[in-house]
């Protein structure tokens, strides 16, 4: 993780920066440190600082800041940024109806685009990850918290990276050809990343379930969306909680009534403590929600 960041201009309006070719929490933390340092410079002409999993991008107006000036400022920020290994953030419990009827209907509709049309996405994911069955997969998926390492693709969609050792990371390929439809608030998975589809639309990730909790709403109807129409930020920690159909329907009714709320707690995450004890440390985070 000590090699320098690779910079490349996306023509005249973007500076692209690859922290690492491969995904790791260290790469994410380094990207976060540099982008925060760049944000603090409040450079005139910087339009948007976009953090991704193991990279970042700066959208800028070259009429206000010369590309070379920006590059030099970012390189200086990189040199001065101490990859902070502690992060003040929040842990959020997201209820999930795994194996739900809506993603099931959708995945059956697009079976011809899947690696194994004879089984469901969950059955396929369980098998190729060497887990006994769907229940074992759900237990692994909801067994350890996830780090939001990027927000994007479409408005407010979180990419998430599970807090487990690399050998235990759940990995699945994307669909052979992307679907043209994905139900809103579907839990997806592609490569080593989980996601929640914030809106209905195209998608290529495997589909495992749905959450009743809106995470993007331009009308900002729920309490936790009052600050911003986009709920997630990189650095958020997510714990999935399996729920049954009855609880799901009840939550939906609360959403409709504008009463639904999420369990959210402030938390301090330590990368070093996680690296030292990748099994025990995430459990201590889960306890904050108990």
């Amino acid at each position, binding site marked *: 993780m000590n090699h320098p960041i690779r910079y*490349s*201009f*996306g*023509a*005249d*309006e*973007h500076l*692209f920066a*690859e922290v*690492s*070719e*491969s*995904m*790791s929490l260290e790469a994410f933390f380094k990207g976060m440190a540099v982008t925060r340092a760049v944000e603090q410079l409040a450079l005139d002409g910087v*339009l*948007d*600082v*976009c*953090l*991704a*999993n*193991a*990279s*970042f*991008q700066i*959208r800028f107006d*070259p*009429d206000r800041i010369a*590309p070379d000036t920006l590059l030099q400022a970012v390189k200086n920020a990189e040199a001065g940024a101490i990859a902070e290994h502690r992060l003040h953030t929040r842990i959020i419990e997201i209820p999930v109806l795994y194996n739900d009827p809506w993603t099931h209907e959708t995945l059956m509709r697009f079976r011809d685009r899947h690696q194994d049309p004879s089984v469901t996405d969950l059955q396929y994911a369980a098998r190729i990850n060497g887990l006994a069955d769907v229940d074992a997969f759900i237990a692994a998926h909801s067994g350890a918290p996830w780090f939001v390492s*990027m*927000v*994007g*693709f*479409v*408005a*407010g*969609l979180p*990419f998430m*990276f599970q807090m487990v050792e*690399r050998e235990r990371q759940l990995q699945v*390929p*994307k669909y052979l050809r992307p679907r043209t439809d994905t139900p809103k608030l579907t839990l997806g998975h*592609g*490569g*080593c*990343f989980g996601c929640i589809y*914030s*809106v209905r*639309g195209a998608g290529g990730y495997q589909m495992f379930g749905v959450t009743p909790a809106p995470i*993007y709403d*331009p009308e900002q109807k729920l309490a936790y969306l009052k600050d*911003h*129409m*986009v709920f997630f930020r990189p650095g958020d920690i997510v714990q999935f909680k399996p729920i049954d159909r009855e609880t799901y329907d009840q939550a939906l009714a609360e959403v409709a009534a504008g009463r639904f709320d999420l369990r959210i707690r402030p938390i301090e995450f330590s990368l070093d403590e996680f690296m030292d004890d990748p099994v025990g440390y995430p459990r201590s985070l889960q306890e904050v929600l108990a």
Partner: protein
Amino acid sequence: MIKVLKPGLATSVQDLGREGYYHLGIPPSGALDQYALAAANHLVGNPAGAAALECTLLGPELGFAQDALVAVCGAHMTAHVDGVPMHADTAFAVRSGQVLRFDFPTAGARAYLAVAGGIDVPLVLGSRSTYALGALGGFAGRRLLAGDQLPVGIASGNSHAGASLPMALRQSLGGEIILRMVPGLYYHRLSDTAAQSFFAEPWTVGSEADRIGYRFKGASALSFEPREQPFGAGSDPSNIVDSCYPIGSIQVPAGLEPIVLHRDAVSGGGYAMIGTVISADLDLIGQMQPNQKARFVEVTLEEALQARRSYKKRLSCLSRLFPCGVEDIARA
């Protein structure tokens, strides 16, 4: 007020777009042809960035419930008012009760219909542009539908029917388009053969061409150098660990058909990008029709900046010709 009688294929309210929310997955949106939007606005006495209607391929049919000064720029698709054809790139008056409709485009893909006073939808995150994927901005966060009633703002009174773009400031559309791009991002992952054929062969706009991006087909597949894929990147050689996508970036899923992202871009994903179309040429993409041909030409960042200066100069010629205020007239 303007009533939408027929919505057309994909008509939406757009201004110059919103900046500052791409890190949350909300793209800039705004007119795909920013020059045409500015031109139409200037002709009716609006600021360059007033909200107008972006009318794609098959235009809408609009019933005017008020008198209005209107101009259409961009794609060559003649507007008719109660059946009478109007000149393009020229302001014209529409009276309350009249109906405006469009012919099919003879060149270009997007016409911009500006109304004096602008389309007066609410500002959302600093812009009136529609971002349909996120159901955000514009009119009800979506493309127009029959029955929609579009509010119109108060006209400046700074223009008049007959105001017209000089020939030098009109756009030439159609034919084979040259798209200048700066190689970079994951360009180094392309094989040498692919790096050559990408520029040497003409590409054709496919049927999947919309505000999110334009897919090109008809040239040789582009192979990537084989490698052991990094952790988290996915198994295909065209996969990367999901990253941000620049507006204008060119990705090549599975090495098959390049996609150039535009102003409603998905903000990130897991396909290697091989470079980025320069900002001065993004308008050209928005005016390309399916089956139109394009070639990609490699330029340096310095050349991209030079092209941007020329483009901005044309824009400033527009605003000098059509000043928005009395003081501007005195200076012009």
